[in-house]
C-alpha cells in the first residue's frame, strides 16, 4: 500500500507541476497581450510588399465550398501579374474537379491540378502543387475558408523581413451560432489567436503556422526539405523544421479569415484526435533538434517544447484525477501534508481551469464580444470532451509506436456549408457566391447582409 501511495503522490506532484507550468504560461501570455500598447506587426507596410505569390488550395470532395474559396481568391486585391491560384483536385469523387476546371477555363490565374494517383492527404497534395508553383511565396487556404479581399496583401507583408519563413493569419469560425460546440470553439479559437499567437509573436517566441490562412517562403520550404506528406499535422511539422533551421514564423492578427468549425462532437473528436497525434509525433521527432539548435534562445526552446507537448496535459490531468481519487479513498494518505494542497490545485484546474478561462474571457473582451464570456461555464463540456478524445488518440498513438504498426490515414474534416446553418448563410443561402446564367460566379448579396 505504501508503494501505491508513493506512486499516487508522485503522479499528483507531476500533475501539479505540469498544470502549474501551463497555467503560468497562460497568465503570462494573457497579461502580456492585455497590457500591450504597440503590437509588433507589419500592418503599416501592407500593400507595399508585393512579391509574386502562388495560392495553393488543396481540395478533396469539396464541391460544396470549392467555388466560394476560388471566387473569393479571384476577387482579392492583389496584382494579377504577380498572382497564380493552384486549385488542387486531390482524388475527388464529386464535382470538385469540374468546378476547378470551370474556374481555370474562365480565369487565367487559376491553374487546375488533378491528382488521381499517389499518396492521399493534404501534405501529399501540397507536395505536388509546390513543384508546379512559380511564386516566391506560397499562400495556403483550405477549401472551407473564406479570405477577404485584403487577405493576400496582409499575409504577404511580413515577408519583407528576410528572416520570416512562414506567416500565419487569424482564423475565425463563421458558424459559431450553429451549435453549442461551434460557439465554444469560437471562444477557443479567439483565445488561441488573439491571445496565444499574438503574445508569442510579440514576445519573440514561435507562433504556430497552421497550414491554412498563411504563407511560406518557397526558398525556405525547399531549404528545409519541403512538405512532409507522412505527417498528420504537416503544418506543425513545417513550423518546427523552419525554426530549428533559423527561420521565424510571423503572425498577422488583422488577417482574419472565416472557417467552418466542427458542429458535432464526433467531428470534433476526430479533428482533435488527429491534431493530438500529429502534434505529439512532432514532439518526438523534433525535441532533440529543438534543444540542440543554435538559432533559438532558451526561452524560445522552452516555449516550443510547451507548444509541442500541449496535448500531454490531457493524460497528465487524467492521471492526476485517478491519483486524487485513489488517495482520497485511502485513509493513510491523508497524513501526507502535500495532498491537501495538490488536491486543491487539481480541483481548481478541474472546475475552473482558471488560467485557460482567463485567456478565453480576455480574448472575447479584446474582440469586443464581451457577452460571450457568459458561455464559459459551458466550456466544461468542451473541456471534458477534448480531454477524452486526446487521451484516447494518444493511447492509440503510443500503442502503435510500441507495436510498430502503421498510423491512421488523414481524414478530412466534415463540411457543413450546404446545410445553410452558418451565420454567413442564415438567410438560407447555400453559398457565398451564385453561379449566373453565363457561368460566372457573383457575390451572393443575401449571404453578406448584416
Amino acid at each position, binding site marked *: 500500500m505504501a508503494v501505491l501511495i508513493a506512486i499516487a503522490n508522485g503522479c499528483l506532484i507531476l500533475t501539479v507541476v505540469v498544470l502549474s507550468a501551463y497555467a503560468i504560461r497562460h497568465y503570462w501570455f494573457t497579461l502580456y497581450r492585455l497590457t500591450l500598447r504597440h503590437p509588433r506587426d507589419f500592418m503599416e507596410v501592407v500593400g*507595399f*510588399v508585393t512579391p509574386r505569390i502562388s495560392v495553393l488550395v488543396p481540395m478533396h470532395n469539396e464541391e460544396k465550398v470549392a467555388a466560394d474559396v476560388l471566387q473569393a481568391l479571384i476577387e482579392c486585391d492583389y496584382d494579377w501579374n504577380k498572382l497564380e491560384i493552384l486549385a488542387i483536385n486531390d482524388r475527388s469523387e464529386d464535382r470538385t474537379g469540374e468546378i476547378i476546371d470551370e474556374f481555370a477555363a474562365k480565369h487565367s490565374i487559376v491553374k487546375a491540378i488533378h491528382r488521381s494517383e499517389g499518396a492521399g492527404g493534404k501534405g501529399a497534395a501540397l507536395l505536388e502543387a509546390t513543384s508546379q508553383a512559380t511564386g516566391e511565396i506560397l499562400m495556403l487556404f483550405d477549401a472551407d475558408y*473564406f479570405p477577404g479581399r485584403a487577405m493576400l*496583401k496582409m499575409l504577404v507583408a511580413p515577408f519583407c523581413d528576410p528572416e520570416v519563413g512562414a506567416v500565419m493569419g487569424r482564423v475565425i469560425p463563421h458558424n459559431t451560432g450553429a451549435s453549442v460546440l461551434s460557439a465554444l470553439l469560437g471562444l477557443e479559437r479567439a483565445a488561441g489567436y488573439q491571445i496565444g499567437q499574438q503574445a508569442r509573436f510579440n514576445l519573440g517566441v514561435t507562433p504556430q503556422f497552421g497550414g491554412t490562412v498563411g504563407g511560406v517562403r518557397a526558398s525556405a520550404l525547399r531549404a528545409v526539405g519541403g512538405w512532409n506528406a507522412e505527417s498528420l499535422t504537416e503544418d506543425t511539422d513545417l513550423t518546427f523544421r523552419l525554426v530549428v533551421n533559423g527561420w521565424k514564423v510571423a503572425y498577422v492578427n488583422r488577417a482574419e479569415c472565416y472557417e467552418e468549425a466542427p458542429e458535432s462532437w464526433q467531428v470534433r473528436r476526430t479533428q482533435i484526435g488527429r491534431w493530438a497525434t500529429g502534434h505529439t509525433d512532432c514532439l518526438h521527432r523534433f525535441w532533440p533538434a529543438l534543444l540542440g539548435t543554435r538559432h533559438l534562445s532558451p526561452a524560445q526552446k522552452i516555449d516550443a517544447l510547451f507548444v509541442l507537448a500541449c496535448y500531454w496535459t490531457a493524460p497528465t490531468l487524467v492521471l492526476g484525477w485517478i491519483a486524487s481519487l485513489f488517495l482520497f479513498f485511502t485513509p493513510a494518505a491523508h497524513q501526507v501534508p502535500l495532498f491537501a494542497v495538490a488536491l486543491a490545485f487539481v480541483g481548481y484546474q478541474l472546475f475552473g481551469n482558471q488560467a485557460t478561462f482567463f485567456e478565453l474571457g480576455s480574448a472575447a473582451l479584446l474582440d469586443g464580444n464581451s457577452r460571450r464570456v457568459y458561455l464559459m461555464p459551458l466550456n466544461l463540456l468542451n473541456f471534458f470532451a477534448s480531454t477524452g478524445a486526446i487521451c484516447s488518440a494518444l493511447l492509440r498513438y503510443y500503442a502503435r509506436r510500441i507495436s510498430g504498426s502503421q498510423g491512421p490515414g488523414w481524414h478530412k474534416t466534415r463540411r457543413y456549408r450546404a446545410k445553410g446553418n452558418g451565420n454567413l448563410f442564415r438567410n438560407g443561402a447555400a453559398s457565398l457566391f451564385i453561379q449566373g446564367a453565363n457561368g460566372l460566379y457573383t457575390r451572393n448579396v443575401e449571404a453578406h447582409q448584416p
Partner: protein
Amino acid sequence: MIPWRFALFCAGIGLIVYLHFYFSHRQWRRVRGEVPSDVDPTYVKREDYFAQSFRSKVRDWLNLPSLDGPLGGPRTVLKERETIRVVPELQMEPGAGSSDILVVEGDFRCGPGCALSREIYARGKAAIGAGSQIQAIAADQNVELGDKVTVARWVDSLGELRIGRACVVHSRATAQTIRLAMDAEVQSVFAPLIESDPDPSAQEHAYLPFVVQSLQIPLADAQSAASWKKLGFDNSKLIRLDADSWIYHGSLKPRVPLRLAAKLVVKGDCVCPPGSVLEQDLKTTGRLAVGDGSECRGNLVAGKSLYLGLQVRFSGILHSGAALWLSRGVHGEAGGGNFVAAHAGSSLYMEAGVTVHGKLSGGKHVKVVPASYAEKWRRRYEFSSEKT
C-alpha cells in the same frame, strides 16, 4: 449534522450550480444564429480610407432634405444628431469656432486660432490659420495648414498638402504631394511625393562615395576569409539559411563598405560603412545603421533602431522596432510605379531635405527635426558628418 442544515447546504450548492449554467444557457440562446465578429470580407486597406469614407458619406448626406435652403445653395441638413452646414465658400474670422460638419462647395479659409470640432469637406482649396484646432479635413484641391495647427484626426487633399511648422496631425495625412515644415508631427503620411522643407541653417553635404575596396557577402572567394576577419567580418559566423539567404551570428561592423549580394540576417547590430551597396534584404535583431551615400535596393528590417545616413537612397521597405532616422538628403523611390514605405515602432525622424515617394509612419509619430538634433544620432553610430 442536522438534516435541515444539510438540506439547506445542498440547496445552496444546487442553486449555485444551476445559476452557473443558467446564465450560460441563456447566453447561448441569445447568440444562436449570430455573426461572431464584424469581419468585413470586402474590406480593402487604403491609406486614405477615412477621407474616402467621409466623402462618400457627404455625398449621401447632401441628398437629404435641407431645413432652410434649396438643393444646390447654402443650407443646413440634419442627419439624426449631426448638423451639416453647406456653404458655397467660407472664410472664418480669427478665433471663430464651429461644431457643425462643414461642406464648402468652393474654397475654405479660416483665420488663426479657430476651433472646428467636426469634419470639414472643401471642394476647392483649404487654408487653416496658425494655431487653429480642427477635427479632420478633406479637400479636392490644395490644403495648407498654418504653423502650430492641431488636427485631431486626418487630413486629405487631392492636390498638395503643406503641413506648417510645429503642426500636429494625430492620425493620417494623405495627398498627391505632401510638404512638411520643421517640427511638423504626423502619425503617418502617404503621397506619391513627400518632402521635408530644406533647412537653410544646415551645411550642404555633397558626398561622393569613393570606394576602393568593398566586402561582398557572401564572400566570392572563401580563401580570403582570414584577411576579411581583420576588417571586421568573421566568415565562420555566417550560416546559410537557403540558397539566397544567410545568417550572421553576432554583430557586423566591417571597416570597409559592404556589398550585400544575398539576403542577410544579422543576429546583433550592423553598421554598414558609407558607400555600401545593399542589393538584397538586410535584417538585424539589434540596431542597423547605413552610412552616408549608400544605396539600399532591398528591404531593411531592424529589431531596434534604424539609421540612414546622409544622402542614402532606398527603394524597398524600411521597418524598425524602435526609432527610425532619415538623414538629410535621403531619397526613397521604388521603380515601376511602386511606392516605398518606412515604418518605425516608435518615432520616425526625418531631417530637412528628405524626399520619399510612398509612405512614412511611426508608432508614436513622424517628425521633422533640425540638423543640430541629428548630430547626436550620427555620433551614436560613429557617423559624424565631420568624419565623412
